[in-house]
């Protein structure tokens, strides 16, 4: 007989985890598809009954998305324009059914190269709060996502929240996902941008690409190139030679590597075109 724990307090969850051998369950949108069994396999720690883990808040200069927060919660939240990309991504995760169950943090823990949430969170300079019975630590998202389906999560540890500095929650966010169909689709490539514009000039740009490397990546060289330039010129400055060195796509059933490089570049270009077309300037 397997055990199923559904505590209401975080500390209880951490104590259970310390004993080891538990699979953490939140939205379950990745756990069930991994089995044909009629029930979840193994001993389960269900974290969805812990009120402290659910919700989005701004406290002491830090935006916090609790680990049990669903895509629907995110989609419906009243958030600044810098989150618009992340909210757009939320609308494109699977389907309404998946968005109602699946969690933003779970998406990171599964660590698919095509995780819909990762590019936007990278542009928001997100980090991941990890807790265990022994304490807490915070890793940047880049430190947390080690590779395809690999994270820095240690035994006995869970993600408790995704954190974003309020200072990074400025400017306008946007997101584009490219797939072979409209709904219920895994990305061939995707791109996220958060751009701060002042007097028509790009003050700062945070740009990330997903599904084109084992983990989503920020395009630092491009970001530096764009800074200080008129937003209307930004799209023209996006060239394959500056985008592709950061990427390491693979050939798979959805597309080949060369195509992904082209597509990623074009998606970034289009994000910047949309950014330039927005009438109002999203100031900090």
């Amino acid at each position, binding site marked *: 007989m397997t055990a199923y724990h*559904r505590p209401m307090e975080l500390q209880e969850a951490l104590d259970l985890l310390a004993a080891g051998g538990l699979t953490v369950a939140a939205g379950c949108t990745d756990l069930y*598809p991994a089995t044909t069994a*009629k029930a979840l396999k193994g001993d389960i720690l269900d974290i969805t009954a812990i009120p402290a883990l659910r919700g989005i808040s701004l406290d002491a200069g830090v935006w916090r998305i609790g680990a049990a927060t669903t895509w629907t919660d995110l989609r419906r939240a009243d958030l600044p324009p810098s989150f618009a990309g992340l909210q757009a991504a939320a609308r494109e995760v699977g389907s309404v059914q998946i968005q109602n169950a699946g969690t933003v943090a779970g998406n990171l823990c599964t660590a698919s190269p095509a995780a819909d949430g990762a590019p936007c969170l990278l542009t928001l300079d997100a980090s991941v709060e990890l807790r265990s019975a022994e304490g807490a630590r915070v890793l940047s998202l880049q430190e947390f996502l080690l590779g395809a389906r690999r994270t820095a999560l240690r035994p006995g540890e869970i993600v408790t929240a995704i954190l974003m500095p309020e200072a990074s929650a400025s400017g306008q966010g946007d997101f584009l996902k490219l797939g072979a169909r*409209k709904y219920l689709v895994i990305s061939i490539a995707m791109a996220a941008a958060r751009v701060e514009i002042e007097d028509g000039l790009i003050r700062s740009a945070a740009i990330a690409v997903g599904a084109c490397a084992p983990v989503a990546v920020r395009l630092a060289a491009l970001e530096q190139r764009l800074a200080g330039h008129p937003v209307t010129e930004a799209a023209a400055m996006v060239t394959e030679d500056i985008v592709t060195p950061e990427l390491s796509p693979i050939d798979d059933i959805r597309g080949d590597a060369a195509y992904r490089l082209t*597509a990623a570049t074009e998606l970034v270009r289009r994000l910047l075109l949309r950014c330039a077309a927005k009438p109002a300037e999203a100031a900090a």
Partner: protein
Amino acid sequence: MNRPFGKLQMRVNGAVTPFAATPGRRLSEVLREDLRLFGTKIGCDAGDCGACTVLLNGEPVCACLTPAIRADGAEVTTVEGMASELPRLQQSFLRHGAAQCGICTPGLLTTAAALLRSNPAPSRAEVEDALGGVLCRCTGYAKIVDAVCDTGAERPAAACPVSGKAVGARLERLDGGPKVTGEESYGADLVLPDTLEVRAIRSPHHAARFTLGDIAGWAAKATGKVEVFTAADIPGENLFGTIPDFVDQPAIAGDRVRQRGEAIAIVVGEAATLDGLDLSTFPVDWTPEDSGIDLDHLPEADLHPTRPGNRMIAGLVRCGDAEGALAQSAFTAQTTIDTAYVEHAYIEPEAGIAWLDGDTLVIRACTQAPVMDRDETAKVLGLPRDRVRVIPAATGGGFGAKLDVSLQPLIGLAALRTGRPCRMVYTRSESMASTTKRHPARMTGRIGCDAEGHVTAMTFDGDFNTGAYASWGPTVAVRVPVHASGPYRTPNYHAEARAMHTNGPAAGAFRGFGVPQAALVQEALYDDLAKAAGIDRLDFRLINALRDGDRTVCGQKPGGIGIAECLEALKPHWERASDEVRVQGIAGSIRRGIGVASCWYGCGNTGLPNPSTIRLGITASGALVLHQGAADIGQGSNTVVAQLCADALGLPVGQMTLVDGDTAKTPDCGKTSASRQTFVTGKAAMLAGKMLRSKILVMSNMGDDATLSLEGDALTVTDGKAAREIRLGDLPADAHGYVLAAEETYDPPTLPLDENGQGEPYAVYGYGAQIAEVAVDMTLGTVKVLRITAAHDLGRVVNPLLAEGQVEGGVAQGLGMALMEEYIPGRTENLHDYLIPTFGDMPEIRSIFIEKADPEGPMGAKGLGEHVLIPTAPAILNAIRDASGARITRLPALPHRVLAAIRSAE
């Protein structure tokens, strides 16, 4: 601490419902298996199809992804709650024809209900966004959107057509009611007392030898009794198939597997016992063998000893001197096109239950061919046919793959050996790995025309990957050369198609039997030739369209050829679309283009008998009963056949009671394939209706113009002033319990093909042509199909509502084949890697129906089911080329392939 989960309860559709389940059990299992609420369907167990959608505290969730514990204390709304929640939504689904097979309908209704609660008058885009997580394989989605957008007002139920007015009426499907209430009972939805479950052990290898280990020892480790049956337990001939001389597939492999997913044993036990078993520990030693699964990697050794070189069969049609005429043609064009394995992807994985009724084995399962299932199962199990009874369960889509037996011999064996009812429900991956596919093809074609655009000759040479077993591969090899010319005059012709064995999944029947692949070649070449000759592409097709009196490439002169009428009907749409492309399409990163393609398709078996028999009777108490054995897998034969019969008889269709294709109750109507049911079974029904009418007229001594009415046990015959009443209760009943009855058989008149493919392979053909309007993203290679205008010649439109549903659903499958569908064995055995169109991928579809009566079809009617998807993919590919210059030679046209083709065209 671990919270005790002892007493759980949820409010299901408003009723407090205690339940007991392990906390991590899928809510879908709790609802279906524990609470027996079978309205919630399971299509994938992975959140990919949305069929199991229920409302959890008002929000749509996939019940298959929801731990049971989360329903504790919650409100759960299932399809069974829809009647009280939104009866108007259910009625709207019926009125709009939004349910075909009905397997996705419960999930759609619940999801739509959540939308309508917050937004009672949604836009089409809002409906698509809200419902985008539910897949439908039958409808093409448009009628579902129509239905959800049309729940605002109470509408009276449409009046049932009066006598003689059923044919042509926009009649709701007669069997629709249970599909919208959740009461429809599919293969997985019947459980009898003491039912055991059956699971199969399947090959993970494309080719392997194997030896079984200590099965008894393995089974003994289970928590309860488990029985394992292998090939050694099969009492009859361990082979099934569909075509005599090509029966080659073991129900359970003995010591060798030729394809992935092949069953090597079945495990039978109580559900709870099997749930606790890890089937991956089953004791078997595999010795993988060299294998090849595609045409580039044909297996070196022969899969079947009687088929050297792995060539199963070749089909040939030739007339005139094709090479000679090509050499003298003003223009010639040539192309080679590769297509992929395409999965049927019905939302209902195979399911059924078998039990013993005395010494009769009863099989109740999904099917397109109940009598063939009975015969194949009886043979495998060593039973006489009269000791096997097949009761068709409601079938959640088929499209060809449910013509073959799948689990029928397995559950039959289990029931025979255990003496208990045995149920089997395939998992999604099991369904995808083990059942048939559309043939991947590599086809080369060459066509020539003269300076005025008259086609002079065509050659076609195709290899079709038929996979490890024959299935319907021979049919594909025969149908392709007959149809590869398209519905066009081709005086010199040489077409050959070979079915080649590989270790890929057996390729069989899939809506069109190879013709959709072949049409890609011919229609691409017609565009080349039109351009070379400087003739408008639609005009080029009109110049060459077959007309009455013309001979086909088989030398046949069909009657009622409607292709020119279809193309003429498209002309104004073609001109409008051409103008739009001129205005909008030539520059920028998004380019518009249009394409046109045609179809023709022979209805029924190719040059072989395929009779249907219809029984119609009236009981002493006045029940009018139609024994309608054509399996209705959503396409609508229950309704269409009844319409034809009712009008021939002269009583209202609404008075008919339908008896399905239960082999113990109903004569054989053959298989639901080859677009034959409206034509063949419809004609048998018409003849039966006429025969019963003539018996009644003779009995009442009335003339042909008399009208009938049936009220209670009084059958009244009225002729002008006179009326005669037949008291049914006074008449003796026959062996079937009818006081008045007729039984008629119809078999289409055909002539077999000779060694050159000459003959009269079909008695009736249907025709159609479609225009695709697309937008191609020139930098991303993505394609958006904006509109499909589909003109189809149905001879006589028996039911426009259902006919539109066929067109829209066929277009969806054609679009999927063109743009996204590619089954890769071992890699895409799920519905998130194998993509079918969703709500957001469908264009606007305009159906135009032509009625050029067929002299043979019932009331002039022709078949439609397969025709509708044949033109779609070639029309889309031609439109892509028109927009972008990209010549797509490998399907599907995924974005990276389109972009590569754009670049190579530049």
